[in-house]
């Protein structure tokens, strides 16, 4: 093997890489926040007494978790136009990320709700709280705290899966890496550098997860102060 590596040719395009990293973080955050919202609704539906809601939520979860995200993405981007719905790459990408992540979050949030001791809602009801108040103020905060580690892993998985949306031309890190490759033909170096950036993002998220938990969950702050 007499190939000379040229990482410099890649690194001179650092503004593109920075832009890609910012966009990747943006896609991940949108996917995570909206996905969490869908997950909470989905989890409530999956535990609902209403058979219809339960069936819809179960169908959604099983459908998404048993098909590749690439198929979902291609259906949104390439197939919806034949039904008259034309989406830009950005819209299709966000839709696919949210649609996909929502199903995984549904299962995670449901596990969190199931982990709450039944005496908690019983106590809340005996204090005269409505179902909505019980859910919002008693069940959900504790459930989210219990599933926090799983949510961080899912967030990392989501962040890594945003690389797939490069296949429809959304402007995230992998896609912009491909653009650099088109400029200098250093494919191996480009994707090595892009891989290192993803790794740094993952490590950053893992290392700072305890810190983030302390910001999000007031009870942990209280414990830490004690």
């Amino acid at each position, binding site marked *: 093997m007499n190939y000379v590596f040229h990482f410099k040719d890649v690194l001179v395009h650092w503004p593109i890489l920075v832009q890609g990293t910012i966009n990747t973080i943006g896609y991940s955050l949108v996917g995570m926040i909206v996905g969490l919202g869908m997950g909470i609704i989905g989890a409530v539906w999956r535990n609902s007494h209403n058979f219809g809601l339960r069936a819809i939520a179960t169908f959604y979860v099983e459908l998404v978790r*048993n098909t590749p995200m690439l198929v979902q993405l291609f*259906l949104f981007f390439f197939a919806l136009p*034949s039904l008259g719905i034309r989406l830009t790459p950005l819209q299709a990408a966000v839709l696919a990320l949210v649609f996909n992540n929502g199903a995984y979050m549904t299962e995670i949030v449901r596990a969190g709700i199931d982990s709450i001791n039944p005496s908690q809602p019983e106590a809340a009801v005996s204090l005269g709280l409505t179902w909505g108040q019980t859910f919002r103020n008693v069940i959900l905060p504790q459930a989210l705290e219990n599933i926090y580690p799983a949510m961080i892993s899912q967030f990392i998985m989501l962040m890594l899966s945003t690389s*797939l949306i*490069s296949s429809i031309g959304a402007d995230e890190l992998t896609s912009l890496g491909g653009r650099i490759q088109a400029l200098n033909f250093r494919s191996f170096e480009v*994707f090595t550098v*892009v891989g290192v950036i*993803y790794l740094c993002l993952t490590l950053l998220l893992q290392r700072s997860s305890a810190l983030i938990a302390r910001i999000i969950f007031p009870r942990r702050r209280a414990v830490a102060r004690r």
Partner: protein
Amino acid sequence: MMRDLVLNDFVLLTLATRWTILLSLIAFVGGGFVGAIVAYGRISRAAPVRAISAGYIQVIQGTPLLIQLFIWYFGLSLVGTNLPPLVAAGIAVTLNSSAFFAEIWRGCLEAIPRPQWEAAASLALTRFQQSRYVIVPQATRIALAPTVGFMVQIIKNTSLTALVGFVELMRQGQMITNVTFEPLPIYLYAGAVYFALCFPLSALSHKLERKFNAGRSTYRGA
């Protein structure tokens, strides 16, 4: 040039599923083999071995599979070998699943209480015999459900190899779409095939989980 979508296209898609299944099997067998070694590396008594295994898992789990595919695909061509796409795809999915298997199985091995190792050691079993006859049989019960569950992930992951040009179900779908311009039925069909492959495994995984969790709780209660 465009042509109409015909029944034969669906036959073609179904036949392309062979490659999806083959690649999944490669990833499962190869990844299982490498993963078992890495899992033992993670619980090794030698600190450097533990560190190397942990680093390997961190790098693979911390980067997207798509990037790993690109790196193998372009990297192998740098070495000057003109390998078929199956090799690059096979290496990438194998190493990717090995890291996940290693983490799953490490958890299962560590779930076995330490005294089991100690009791086996006190019976003069070597370290290999301890794990072969005492630890692994117990860990297998715990490992079965997550292992089957991860197979679903492997099958779904193989769809990414379409993006580096390996012709499996997804890529075949793309190619037929290019000539017929009928993405909706083709991708729906591809999705249905993936679902038909994955759903039974998911269901089996849930079933195993329920079965063995129940078994364990009575065992611990005794």
